[in-house]
């Protein structure tokens, strides 16, 4: 009766949710990354600039997570139920971090004593980033407990946090000038090095302990595609280093985004056709045909519109920032 089979639909939804995840991770990633970097920034003036650089966009960026949550809940209810209930502690830690971070950004501005809010901003961002890393690590290891998984999960948390720091630092290069821009360039190099080190270790770890290894990486076609993506990531890493050192303004951030996109494409390719490897497949988790179609019409139509006005908001606030007078 329909030209779209249930399998095609679930794959399309997997792709759409993957796109939402990349949009969230890249945009809120630089917000959270700036929060992490604010912890090692001494000058209050610099911290003001850092928060000001994301002041008008952080809320829309965080909203991609809400969009992602709603889409996962509707398209894959069983996955939403399984993941959130099993990952209760890291999810609550992430929410705590996001509450601290959001409140700090909004309340720092009118506050007389900014120190406490600066700590909340840095700590909240760090907690949220680490918790998201834990969630990612638990998914990749198929929610299996144990020491090896624990080490892997800890490494994922550090990897995600340093990846966010890389995005945050390169975003600051774009938005700031003077000493802060200079500092951001060195943060970017440090974060790029730790991110790539974590990525290499995590790839080896996945090969050893994750169900992904025998489920997906044993397939030669998948393996070749992953090799290609690995090559893109390596080029992106080289691009970050080159762009930072050659004092480009926009290129470092763009290269860091490319690094994230290629890593998440690799992740999506490794998970497919499961959502939780070895535990829950896309088709087991998916809603019925009619819901997937109905929701695709509503959500699918809105995606380009949402991306459009989000882009417009960035456009309005484009260019390097100046410290706002009080």
């Amino acid at each position, binding site marked *: 009766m329909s030209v779209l089979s249930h399998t095609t639909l679930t794959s399309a939804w997997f792709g759409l949710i993957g796109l939402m995840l990349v949009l969230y991770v890249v945009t809120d990633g630089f917000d959270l990354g700036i929060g992490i970097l604010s912890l090692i920034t001494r000058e209050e003036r610099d911290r003001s600039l850092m928060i000001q650089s994301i002041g008008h966009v952080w809320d829309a960026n965080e909203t991609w997570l809400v969009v992602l949550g709603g889409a996962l809940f509707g398209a894959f209810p069983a996955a939403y139920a399984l993941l959130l209930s099993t990952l*209760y502690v890291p999810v609550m830690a992430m929410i705590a971090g996001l509450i601290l971070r959001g409140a700090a950004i909004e309340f720092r501005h009118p506050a007389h004593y900014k120190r406490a809010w600066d700590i909340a901003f840095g700590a909240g961002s760090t907690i949220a980033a680490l918790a998201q890393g834990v969630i990612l690590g638990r998914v990749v290891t198929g929610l299996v407990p144990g020491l090896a998984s624990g080490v892997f999960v800890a490494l994922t948390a550090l990897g995600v946090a340093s990846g966010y720091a890389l995005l945050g630092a390169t975003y600051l290069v774009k938005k700031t000038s003077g000493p802060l821009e200079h500092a951001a360039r060195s943060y970017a190099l440090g974060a790029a090095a730790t991110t790539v080190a974590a990525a290499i270790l995590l790839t080896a770890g996945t090969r050893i302990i994750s169900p992904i290894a025998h489920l997906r990486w044993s397939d030669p076609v998948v393996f070749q595609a992953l090799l290609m993506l690995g090559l893109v990531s390596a080029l992106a890493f080289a691009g970050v280093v080159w762009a930072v050192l050659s004092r480009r303004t926009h290129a470092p951030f763009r290269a860091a985004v490319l690094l994230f996109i290629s890593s998440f494409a690799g992740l999506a390719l490794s998970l497919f056709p499961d959502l939780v490897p070895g535990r829950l497949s896309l088709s087991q988790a998916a809603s019925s045909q009619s819901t997937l179609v109905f929701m695709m019409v509503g959500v699918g139509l809105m995606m380009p519109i949402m991306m459009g006005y989000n882009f417009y908001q960035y456009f309005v606030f484009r260019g390097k920032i100046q410290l706002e007078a009080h």
Partner: protein
Amino acid sequence: MAPDHGVAWQTPLARRAAELRPHNGDCFSLIEEVPNTIMAINDIVNLSRGQFAMTAIFHIIWPILTISLSAFLLLVETLWVRTNDVVYYRHARFWAKLLVLNFAVGVVSGIPMEFQFGTNWAGFSRYTGEFIGNILGFEGTMAFMLEAGFIGVMLYGWGRVPRGVHLFATAMVAFGSSLSAFWIMVANSWMQSPAGVAVVDGRLVVTDYLAAIFNPDMIWGVTHMWVGALETGAFVIAGISAFYLYRRRYGEFFLRSFKLALIALLVIAPLQIWLGDSSGFEVFRTQPAKGAAIEGDWHTNAPGTGAPWALLAWPDQAQQKNDWALELPTMLSVLGTHSLTGKITGLAEIPRADQPPMVPLLFYAFRVMAGIGFWFMVLAFWSAWVWRKTRGRLTEMLRQRKLLLAWVLSIPLPYIAVESGWIVREVGRQPWVVYGLLRTRDAATLLPAGTIATSMTMFAFFYAILIATFVVFAYKWLKKGPDLDALPPAFVKPLRPQARLLETQS
């Protein structure tokens, strides 16, 4: 004609669902050994209910003001663009500062809401995800992002975008926040009167989207809540304006916002009473147990007679009767069925396991809400009468000390009314999470009690800080008052060549 009540709490769909209800132990238990006593399971479920109730009660405070305040900002900004009167621009800037503070707490307290469905109510998520998840997905993509995507331009975009674009951004924020309330109320009303679904393999599948979205409770749930939000904002705006008038500060400025809010309330306050009555009428039709509980009505009236309405009473659930009651004959049939002899099913006729808990809470929460609703109408009409008598002259209005004080003291009341209404709506639906289809007990994730208690304590701690911070900053804002010299910034097109020059230098 009196409507046919039947046994609405046991529909064929509900009976079918009873056979296929998802069993808790099957996939959403995170504790090693599932407790074998009902008591132990109930403790866990009640902890999760407590956490959800606390986070929801805290969260709802903020969006209701965001909805109405953004609508008010749209109004004053439109008036400014149309009339070029700078006072409206100053109003837009002044009230936007309250919106920023309010919006911040609303955003951060909203995040736990969406994720708790999965973390604490995994059974509910899996069972109803096809519909509830779908609707929350719509809410996020159509409404929530719209609000977030334009609020930056609205709050910080003055002078960066032309007037028309700024007005458009304000309109999108106002529209987004109201649309968000619409989708949330669609989801919630469906939980009150589920329709358009069938049970397949132990979970609900949508068979008719229109029936599910336009479920019996939807139109009343959406409108009663939305108008309640507008009423809240109108009272906050009028109350704060009255506060300045009472203090004789910025009189002329605030008389204008007082007048706008008063005009709105002359329509909103009676409208809300009518919507509340219609909403109650719908409750008696679709959720007789809730209707009987909020009115403390234990026994079905005999055919040909009217059910008496208890104005005040003390419902005693253990004995299934009222300890004492101050009753008006026949009134309950009139309220619940709009007929003199309409049948109202007594709570005692409904099996004990299907009765809502805490009947006195429901009984009094409803009376608090309804009482406040009537007081609002009285206050609005009293003020309109005074306004007419004094022709709204500032000198005369400043002399209305009692009236102004009444408005100031009424500021907390809309919040109390909204919270009471939600308690009636949600506690009254118990023991069901989806009325007649899924019991709350079967919807909860079995988590270790200590884990839920920890997250709940964390939320309580954060919320205490958030509300204290909000109060401090709102007080500072109130003390500072409006900037009566503010002039609209001229829109200056950014100098692109210079920006490019900067780029090549770096």
